[in-house]
């Protein structure tokens, strides 16, 4: 576990307090989570497509959900447990295909190069916290070169002739990313598409922490209601490792899942998150999507009702 964790949490909180709910500071196409349909507070598509404003009613509906659910720190989801049919087959694929998620370009929020980053050895250039792999990405977003566009300008003209059933691609962007499509993951993808409140899928990524994950925010959605959706699809830890910290208050809570679900969510608008690493495997699925607010409302309502007792303890 990282030393002085609460001190670090408090330092990171301070960084986010000034722009906590601003969508303009969200730049999802450059996050570790991969290319998205939302970029700097606008809708986007492929890297060559023009952007346009996020609809007012979409924002309003999520603000309304924030009024109802903004008090939650995290929430188990009323979704049946999602597991791999064959964990050994998964491990074989994982060990062969996973990549280290490493920064390879500066970004607006961290404009420093590897050499001049103020965090030195602890910067995102050098400190690799996750191994990862994307297992699907929306066909209308160009996964391969998306991050090579900066402010709509193509930085590195590149195309790939790589394709096929096992479509492994390493692409250079702000962070390394790799799309690996395989039939093994189809059942997982279908389960997610069926049960998560998705309007449009951006991508699905599997992550494995390989050291302590420093507290941070995702560059996805800053709503006050929980829309950061995850599945701990295989976790060999005997105690909770993922925590969320309230940006306003600093109160930190661990995500302690009940036995009947491994899906959960938290608000990326109101909370930071981090992971303690105990040298035990945790395979963690990040679902990155444009959310359907009606489906979100239904799922949150059902989940709050089902897990009322757990929420009381929180």
């Amino acid at each position, binding site marked *: 576990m990282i030393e002085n964790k609460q001190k670090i949490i408090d330092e990171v909180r301070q960084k986010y307090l000034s722009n906590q709910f601003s969508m303009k500071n969200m730049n999802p196409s450059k996050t570790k989570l991969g290319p998205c349909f939302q970029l700097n507070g606008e809708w986007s*598509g492929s890297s*060559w497509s023009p952007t346009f404003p996020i609809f007012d009613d979409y924002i309003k509906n999520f603000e309304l959900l924030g009024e109802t659910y903004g008090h939650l720190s995290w929430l188990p989801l009323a979704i049946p447990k999602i597991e791999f049919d064959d964990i050994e087959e998964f491990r074989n694929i994982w060990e062969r295909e996973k990549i280290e998620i490493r920064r390879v370009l500066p970004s607006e929020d961290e404009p420093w190069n590897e050499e001049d980053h103020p965090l030195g050895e602890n910067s995102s250039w050098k400190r690799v916290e996750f191994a990862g792999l994307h297992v*699907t*990405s*929306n*066909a*209308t977003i*160009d*996964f*391969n070169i998306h991050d090579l566009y900066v402010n709509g300008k193509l930085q590195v*003209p590149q*195309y790939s*002739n790589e*394709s*096929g*059933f*096992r*479509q492994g*691609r390493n692409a250079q962007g702000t962070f390394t990313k790799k*799309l690996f*499509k*395989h*039939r093994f*993951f*189809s059942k997982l*993808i*279908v389960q997610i*598409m069926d049960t998560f409140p998705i309007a*449009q*899928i951006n991508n699905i990524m599997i992550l494995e922490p390989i050291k302590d994950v420093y507290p941070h925010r995702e560059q996805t959605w800053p709503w006050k209601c929980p829309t950061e959706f995850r599945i701990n699809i295989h976790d060999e830890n005997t105690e909770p490792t993922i925590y969320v910290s309230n940006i306003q208050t600093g109160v930190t809570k661990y995500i302690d899942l009940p036995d009947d679900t491994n899906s959960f969510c938290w608000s990326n608008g109101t909370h930071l998150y981090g992971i303690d690493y105990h040298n035990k495997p945790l395979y963690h699925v990040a679902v990155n999507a444009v959310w359907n607010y009606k489906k979100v409302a239904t799922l949150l309502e059902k989940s709050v009702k089902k897990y009322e007792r757990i929420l009381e303890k929180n």
Partner: protein
Amino acid sequence: MKEFWKKIEIDNLEVIRKKTLDWLTNETDYLVKSKWRGPFIPLKKHRFLDVIVPEIAESFRKLDLFPDDASIYVTYNNGDSIPHKDYTDSIGRINIPILNYENSFTVFFENLKGKRAILPTGSPFYMTTNRDYYEVTRLPFDSPAIVRISEGHDILMTDFTKVPRVTLTISTTPDAGLLLDD
């Protein structure tokens, strides 16, 4: 052996065909020859899958597929389409014959090399840069099929093909190409 295409059955095929054709004919000018600017026309801005023909998503659900995007491919003669790979991370798409598909084929090629170019419609594609590609198989296009669009392919119209020839092409999650044998 690598499959380049596979015919499939989808529910409500006639409804999908009729609603698509009615909409294209009555609500758009995409089938007006004088307005033709290129064969590939994305339909996303029309909310085609959500609003115009929601039956597609219902039918695909039975195949464990969720449609991401739909486009049409419109040709009047063989010169309108050249051997190409689609510019996408998809391995395969589902193609549905809509109009004048009889007596036409989708032809697949090996060793096709390409570089990114932009169609007049604004859509990128891989333009062929070599000539030593060769045909490996052809799909008689008379029913819905999964097609491996990450490999070189083209439309072949015969003397008996009526025009415009119209195909609906749909990207999915999970990638429909995973249903083709590698």
